[in-house]
């Protein structure tokens, strides 16, 4: 029963993951990612990691994906519909990248399938105590793995600041394309996005 459920969930997760990169509409793409996260949370739940499943849904599905959707809603929808009219062009370099990536993935999978990762004493102890308790997780996170934990958070913070610095450019329209956009921002969807952007600016969010 548990095994069948696991395979069904794993298949669904992979299906959603393919949806993320193959969907034409960015909205569907984000929703597929949401589906993949939820499937992953259910897999955690199946393995007995209740806390991890809850945290996964709370952080990824509840907060991060909402921000993704927020950004997608601000995208220029008129431009996106133009993209959808053209068939996807696959360039030579993309084919090479796809083949290389697939080969690497298969290699890693084969490597993982060929050997069993040995259980350490700590793992066995944790398995015996069950994953519902927060204490072992907290102790591990704040003692043995404190430095990697803090380093990871610092890295994420630095990335965030770097992205903000890179994204903050001059406001005035520069290229001819942007100027044209600014002029004919009267289309339905396009008007929506720029209205929304203006409101956000008013709210001090940009």
């Amino acid at each position: 029963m548990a095994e069948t459920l696991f395979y069904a969930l794993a298949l669904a997760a992979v299906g959603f993951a393919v949806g993320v990169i193959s969907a034409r509409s960015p909205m569907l793409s984000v929703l597929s990612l949401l589906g993949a996260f939820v499937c992953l949370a259910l897999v955690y739940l199946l393995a007995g990691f209740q806390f991890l499943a809850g945290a996964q849904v709370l952080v990824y599905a509840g907060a991060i994906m909402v921000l993704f959707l927020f950004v997608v809603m601000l995208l220029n929808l008129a431009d996106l519909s133009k993209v959808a009219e053209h068939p996807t062009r696959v360039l030579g370099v993309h084919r090479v990248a796809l083949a290389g990536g697939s080969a690497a993935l298969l290699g890693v999978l084969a490597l993982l399938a060929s050997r069993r990762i040995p259980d350490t004493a700590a793992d066995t102890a944790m398995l015996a105590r069950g994953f519902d308790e927060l204490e072992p997780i907290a102790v591990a996170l704040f003692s043995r793995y404190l430095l990697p934990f803090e380093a990871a958070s610092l890295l994420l913070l630095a990335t965030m600041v770097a992205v903000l610095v890179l994204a903050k450019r001059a406001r005035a329209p520069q290229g001819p394309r942007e100027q044209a956009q600014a002029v004919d921002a009267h289309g339905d969807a396009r008007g929506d996005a720029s209205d929304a952007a203006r409101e956000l600016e008013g709210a001090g969010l940009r």
Partner: protein
Amino acid sequence: MPELPLWLVWVIKAAVIYGALLSVAGLMSLAERKVSAWMQYRIGPNRVGPFGLLQPLADGVKFMFKEELVPAGANPFLFRIAPALAALPAMLAVAVIPFAGEIELFGQRTTLSVTDLPISSLYVLAVGGLGIYGIILGGWSSNSKYSLLGSLRASAQMVSYELSLILSILAVVALSGSLDLRVIADAQQADAALWNIARAPLAFLLFVVCMFAETNRHPFDFAESEPELVGGFHTEYSAMRFALFFLGEYCAMTVMSCLATVLFLAGGAIPFWPDAPWWAELASFLVKMSAFLFLYLWVRWTLPRFRFDQLMRLGWKVLLPLALFNLFATAALMAAGVL
């Protein structure tokens, strides 16, 4: 009477608790109109049934028979599924609320909640937080600028206030040493001085403010804000799908009130009556929950709406630092042995 199988007990409990939740949500739609009428020196709905008590039923029948419209240019699939996505999470979140301790009814012993999880407070937040997808998708798929602006506001607001909400709950979790709502409620049982509203008053204040923002209620109801956005995210909706958004909102309010009762008012505990029977505990729980629900209505008909930039400033520059300070102060006081 012989012991019933476990699954049957679960099905019965689920049916009773969901029935009760939907009834409370229906009654809230009536209470909203009655209370607003009372505060504005009007009479309010009084035609259908005694004191207008059957008004929610009449509304339901009316919504069923209204014409359903899908606007041109809308994404039909997302447009149709969004109201269900808005209503479902709140209904799922109520599953772990401990309404009363162990009960004995018709020879069956069970606890009065659909299920008990060791991480139930996390579950309520995680599942309840998904309700925003219904609002975002409903507004986006309508292909209308008012709806889109409503959704954008809702998503910015709910993500911002969720942080302070979770931090205020974390202080309570630290005090009780558990994520289990039942353990949190039981830890306050013994004495009214142990209620978390007395031990962590700042957390309570933060929770109540964030509770209004999380359910998109006045004075933070920017997602619908009639004077600016027609109807906000549900501008294009009609008939039963429109009603589902409201049902979801009332369910979310009810769940938030239950959560506040458990976290800060010791669930069903009654002061000076430590070994109260389960029906008294249940009644006391419902009274406390109703007090929070009344607070929602009271605030709605008393305070004017904020401005969106004020809302964001309050959330990020006032509530979030206060919530962080509160968590730190609670931890420090616990380490010092005061709390």
